């Protein structure tokens, strides 16, 4: 097996582990958003275990890359990655959404070191990421800012204010990822308020757009590498995914946007995820 294949296999294995931890956490919490966490798992695995320059024992390391999860309700998949990297003790994962936990239902930077921005009000994260990228540009810093958005989220007008701003200011230290999982809370994105043609929209705003299968680890790694080499403008990776990916009966079903599986469903989901080894 070549080096690239090994790297891909390793990250695919990590993505599967993150999905398993994610379902366990949400099940234990009794509430949460499995669909959008599962669709994001492959990109999150690539980011946290291959791309981002981080020091888990030093979360405020000044030269770290920044990651802003604009679709804040999907934070459990990031918590799973952070725990695996050692940002905090894995036992904390059981406290997700519980009173007093630093693992809030949506991320809170004041309660958990390593969270760059508190999010959860959709449409706002990209603006915050743009501000961080602007600060990096003013300082001539080498770190980059990564921001993941949801596809329902880009219905919000503020996203397009940020989309217009970033290329105008040449923010090539900014890489956005659209988790284009096709489904939002109450239905298909195409039915609620269609965002197509989404790649063309970002390109028209001046972004370097890379359109990929967001469950293909090779394509994810290539896209992230390409995005890092873009000069003079920000990059947008349109990551075509399936909401609920990995648990067949959750896939593309809006019912699994915002509810936890019960005990029986949890067992079935975990069996499917583990069987996929």
């Amino acid at each position, binding site marked *: 097996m070549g080096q690239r294949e090994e790297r891909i296999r390793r990250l695919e294995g990590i993505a599967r582990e993150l999905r398993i931890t994610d379902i366990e956490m949400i099940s234990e919490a009794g509430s949460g958003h499995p669909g959008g966490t599962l669709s994001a798992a492959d990109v999150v695995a690539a980011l946290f275990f291959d791309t981002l320059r981080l020091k888990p024992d030093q979360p405020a390391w000044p030269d770290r890359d*920044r990651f802003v999860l604009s679709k804040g309700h999907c934070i459990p998949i990031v918590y799973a990655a952070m725990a695996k990297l050692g940002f905090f003790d894995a036992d904390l994962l059981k406290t997700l959404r519980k009173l007093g936990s630093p693992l809030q239902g949506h991320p*809170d*930077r*004041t309660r958990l070191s390593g969270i*760059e*921005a*508190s*999010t*959860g*009000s959709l*449409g*706002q*994260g*990209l*603006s*915050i*990421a*743009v*501000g*961080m*990228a*602007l*600060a*990096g540009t*003013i*300082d001539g810093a080498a770190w980059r800012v990564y921001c993941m958005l949801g596809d329902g989220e880009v219905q919000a*007008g*503020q996203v397009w*204010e*940020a989309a*217009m*701003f970033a290329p105008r*200011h040449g923010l090539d230290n900014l890489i956005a990822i659209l988790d284009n999982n096709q489904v939002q809370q109450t239905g298909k994105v195409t039915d609620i308020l269609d965002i197509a043609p989404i790649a063309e929209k970002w390109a028209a705003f001046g972004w370097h757009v890379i359109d990929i299968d967001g469950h293909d680890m090779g394509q994810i790694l290539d896209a992230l590498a390409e995005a890092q080499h873009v000069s003079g403008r920000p990059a947008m990776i349109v990551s075509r995914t399936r909401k609920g990916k990995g648990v067949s009966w959750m896939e593309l079903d809006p019912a699994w946007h915002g509810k936890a599986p019960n005990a029986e469903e949890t067992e079935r989901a975990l069996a499917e995820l583990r069987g996929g080894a």
Partner: protein
Amino acid sequence: MGAATRDAFGRAIVDAGSDERLVVLTGDLRDSTRTEAFAEKYPERFVDCGIAESNMVGIASGLALSGKVPWACSFSCFVTGRFEQIRLAVAYQQANVRIVGTHVGIGVGEDGYSQMALEDVAALRALPNVAIVQPADAAETRAAVRALVDHEGPAFLRLTRQGVDDVTGADPGFDLGRAVTLRDGSDVALLASGATVGEALKAARDLAGDGIEARVVNVHTIRPLDREAVLSAAAECGALVTVEDHSTTGGLGSAVAEVLATGDGSARLKVIGMTTFGESGEPAELYEKYGLSGARVAETVRAFLDR
């Protein structure tokens, strides 16, 4: 008539600009917010966000989370109207953002209601950690800007479009959360903030002619409110009148009422401010019509005291 507090801000922010953490943002209003001089002197730290204030607030947040001290400047109604952005991206993050709102109250004048922030203090006062500062004149604005450079946490600076009386002296200090008594008196206390401080002083001089000695307190910080100043005014004067170019709901008057409602002190309270939308007119005409001029305040105080 002295300078508008927005004019003083424009000069003060240039002086503060030698601190390289400062970044000034605006939404196509560098002229109106008086940030042109900063833009010329520090172009690399001036950001025109265009007419996109939601994004401006988010960008300010990201800058602050990266160690900058951003000042997001616009007409107050346009920037504080992005309440959800201020709530999440600024307040909840505990971000060192300064929201600068100019063109506050009916003092805006001829442009009319759509440009007049009458609800901004009420909105931001509902957030638990945003300092709300409204200097009374140009000198105090300079002192407030200096103090806010190093303030930890989010802050809102509320500034006038129109010129206001110079009332605080040549070089006043600025102690966040500490109200300043500008005139002593024990028959009634007038608590005012921003442009209405000058009107309250005029009213006090007017009332003195009738033998009514009014204390005038400049409440330059509405949050954290100076409880002690309110309670001592209540104890020593027995009657309080608040005067603000803002809605009577949720602003200075409400803040003072909340202190009295704790039961730690008691006094009669009259809240003077706006109870309707505004309209076009000269600022002085509008202050007269809506009861904020010194003469109208004095009239209201006399009726309140039954004198």
